């Protein structure tokens, strides 16, 4: 093994969280910072020629190479898990920028009560109303504490949107149900294409409060507080699974990399696959001493560091902690141990597929151009007569109408799936089909968790991460209710035929849902119930911080990136303002 000289900070992973904290430490300190990214390098202008659905959407060119490493899945702990042999329900990225390069940039904040879900729910409904095997808990941070960091994220990414609540004042046209925000969005809402605008009208006439989807594609040219400029979105339609050809979509490579490159104290090493975090408990109690990685040539390298920031993709954070033997693995039979608990996956499905008389011109749009409603989100509607708790958003985005993925979808009245009859219908409906999507909360349960697989290994021979995950009655009943509501909206939009989602049964790893798989190294107010403290600092090893959605105790309905980045800013402040002066436990 090659031993390198020690550095001040090692950051594991070069995606949104790793590069954001690298930018902050690079700008605000003189520390030597090394980012270890296991994938390849990327540049800001890498995407001029990537508008190819086959290679990028169908063959997953930007994603983690699952031939090297995947996860295994089972629905409950009595089953033997199977490896997910190809990409499906979620899409981890690879290379500099990570999944932040190929995301579709839907950027709502979490509802304020999400952060105190356990205490608020008990307060309102009593403990009897919560599902029997739930594992929900409070985050240890409140919305009010996080709001200033959310605002920094808005400005960093140049979010487009229409505020619905500025310091408590409700504003028509925005999301009047959102938590208070200190300022309007930095850029106006995206343009709204035909399909989404029909949804908006229908939602209004049914008494809902539609608003433009908050988006990290700039609606006009924008320069952020770091001096990074990005052009206005041109609605080319190549967002999700692609990098943006002009940089209108905020990505780590166009938003963070230009700043990082100016700081000589920060370097990014690509092809550096971190295998273990080394912690010598006998000599330096409560400290990690560095990381072992395999470099692009297959050489093992030890990189000592004073401070280690684990910032890989959510699931990989938990796996690296398990492989490194840091913390006590969760045992669902005793409830002891915290590492790996509270595995959740945002409840996301196409609630209805609606077929229209007129063409929709759906090749135009962007990942987040669209309209959504929050009237059925969180605890914003009356649950007293409903068989479930919490909720989510319904929305009509004008994105993803690329023909390999979409052509061939036909209404139920067409029986054939190939041949002339099907072809005729497929051609007719290709541009007359739209979906109302649902994004809902996933509560945490005692039986949904992660550990290491006893059978399957990665290309180095290390055990794969082993997911035990299934839906419960709360999600299934919520889904059924939302499908009905989406059906009403589609009819109001004037759809000729509507196909509804078949409902949630067992967790299905094959259709893409969202890449918002969360938990495993959750945050909380005590080491008995969480892996990291509210500053994302490891409870046992004070010089190890674990960033990203692995810290979320349960899944909110909203997409997580703004919340992930807000928490990263908060951690950056805690490290710069407090930890560096006194390197000890912050909570």
């Amino acid at each position, binding site marked *: 093994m090659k031993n390198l000289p020690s550095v001040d900070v090692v950051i594991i992973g070069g995606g949104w969280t790793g590069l954001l904290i690298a930018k902050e430490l690079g700008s605000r300190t003189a520390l030597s910072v090394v980012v270890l990214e296991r994938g390849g390098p990327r540049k800001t202008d890498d995407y001029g020629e990537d508008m190819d659905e086959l290679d990028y959407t169908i063959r997953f060119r930007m994603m983690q190479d699952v031939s090297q490493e995947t996860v295994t899945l089972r629905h409950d702990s009595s089953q033997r898990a199977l490896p997910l042999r190809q990409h499906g329900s979620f899409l981890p990225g690879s290379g500099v920028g990570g999944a932040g390069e190929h995301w579709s940039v839907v950027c709502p904040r979490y509802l304020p009560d999400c952060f105190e879900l356990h205490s608020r729910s008990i307060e309102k409904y009593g403990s009897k109303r919560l599902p029997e095997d739930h594992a929900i808990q409070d985050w240890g941070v409140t919305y009010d504490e996080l709001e200033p960091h959310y605002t920094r994220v808005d400005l960093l990414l140049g979010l487009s949107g229409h505020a619905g609540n500025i310091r408590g004042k409700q504003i028509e046209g925005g999301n009047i149900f959102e938590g208070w925000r200190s300022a309007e969005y930095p850029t106006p809402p995206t343009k709204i294409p035909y399909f989404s605008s029909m949804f908006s009208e229908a939602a209004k006439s049914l008494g809902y409060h539609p608003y433009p989807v908050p988006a990290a594609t700039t609606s006009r040219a924008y320069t952020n507080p770091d001096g990074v400029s990005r052009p206005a979105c041109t609605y080319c339609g190549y967002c999700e699974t692609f990098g943006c050809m002009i940089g209108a979509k905020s990505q780590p490579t166009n938003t963070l990399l230009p700043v990082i490159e100016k700081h000589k104290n920060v370097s990014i090493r690509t092809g550096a696959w971190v295998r273990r975090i080394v912690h010598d408990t006998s000599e330096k109690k409560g400290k990690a001493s560095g990381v072992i990685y395999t470099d692009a040539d297959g050489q093992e390298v030890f990189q000592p560091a004073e401070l280690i920031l684990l910032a890989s993709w959510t699931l990989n954070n938990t796996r690296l902690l398990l492989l490194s033997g840091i913390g006590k693995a969760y045992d669902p039979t005793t409830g002891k141990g915290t590492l790996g608990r509270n595995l959740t996956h945002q409840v996301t499905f196409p609630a209805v597929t609606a077929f229209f008389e007129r063409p929709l011109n759906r090749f135009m749009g962007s990942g987040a151009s669209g309209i959504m409603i929050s009237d059925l989100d969180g605890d914003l509607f009356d649950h007293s007569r409903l068989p479930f708790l919490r909720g989510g958003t319904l929305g009509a985005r004008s994105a993803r109408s690329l023909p390999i993925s979409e052509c061939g979808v036909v209404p139920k009245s067409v029986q054939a799936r*190939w041949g002339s009859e099907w072809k005729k219908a497929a*051609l007719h409906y290709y541009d007359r089909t739209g979906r109302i999507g649902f994004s809902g909360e996933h509560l945490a349960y005692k039986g949904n968790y992660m550990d290491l697989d006893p059978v399957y290994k990665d290309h180095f021979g290390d055990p794969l991460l082993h997911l035990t995950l299934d839906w419960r009655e709360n999600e299934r009943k919520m889904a059924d209710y939302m499908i009905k509501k989406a059906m009403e909206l589609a009819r109001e939009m004037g759809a000729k035929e509507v196909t509804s989602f078949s409902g949630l049964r067992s967790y299905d790893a094959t259709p893409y849902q969202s890449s918002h798989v969360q938990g495993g190294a959750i945050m909380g107010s005590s080491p008995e119930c969480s892996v990291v403290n509210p500053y994302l600092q490891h409870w046992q090893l004070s010089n190890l911080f674990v960033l990203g959605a692995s810290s979320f105790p349960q899944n909110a309905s909203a997409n997580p990136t703004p919340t992930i980045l807000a928490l990263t800013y908060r951690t950056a402040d805690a490290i710069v303002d407090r930890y560096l002066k006194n390197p000890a436990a912050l909570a």
Partner: protein
Amino acid sequence: MRRREFLTLSAASIGGVLVYSLDREVFRLSAQTNQSVRIPLRFFTQSEALIVSAAASRIFPSDEAGPGAREAGVAVYIDHQLAGPWGRDRYRYTQGPFEENAPAEFGYQGKATPRQIYRQGLKDLKGFDRLKAAEQDDTLKQIETTLFFSLLRQNTIEGMFCDPMHGGNIDMVGWQLIGFPGPRMSNYDDVDKHFGEAFRPKPSSLHQVTRGKVRPSEDLE
């Protein structure tokens, strides 16, 4: 080294004027001149390519609704895909043990690669290309639920609507059928207009739009 295999297409058999972009050569066929062209195959044998071409044409037929798999060059597209990394499962997790009969929600768990699935599937369809259309449909109905058929159907759709650099969607016939314009640098002035009316800009391929040398993944490794 495998023997060079070719798919021979005559202009008369397909009719009209088509462009085949293969190995960076452009072939223009026309029914009037009665030319034919020999397309070099990367994976299929000639007889396999003829069966794939015939079967894809029943899935996405050339009919009164417009051109189909034959005009789009779907067989050539599938040949390239199988010869490339996808065909040999370069990007799939292929460590055992394999649980062939796993529930559908775990995704494909088998050991066979796309190349092996096609080889076997085509063996079972021996003589298919010489059947009448109605007989071909009956034969396909019998294998509708197989993995081979679902791959063939998916690959046929891919070959109809992929960027032409992948060997299918020749002359953008697939995109013209559905009014998809291909990659466009900007829809800024149109995205919030044309409500309820078809807006159909002339299609362009990725090569035309970027004027660059984009390499498809099947040619990279």
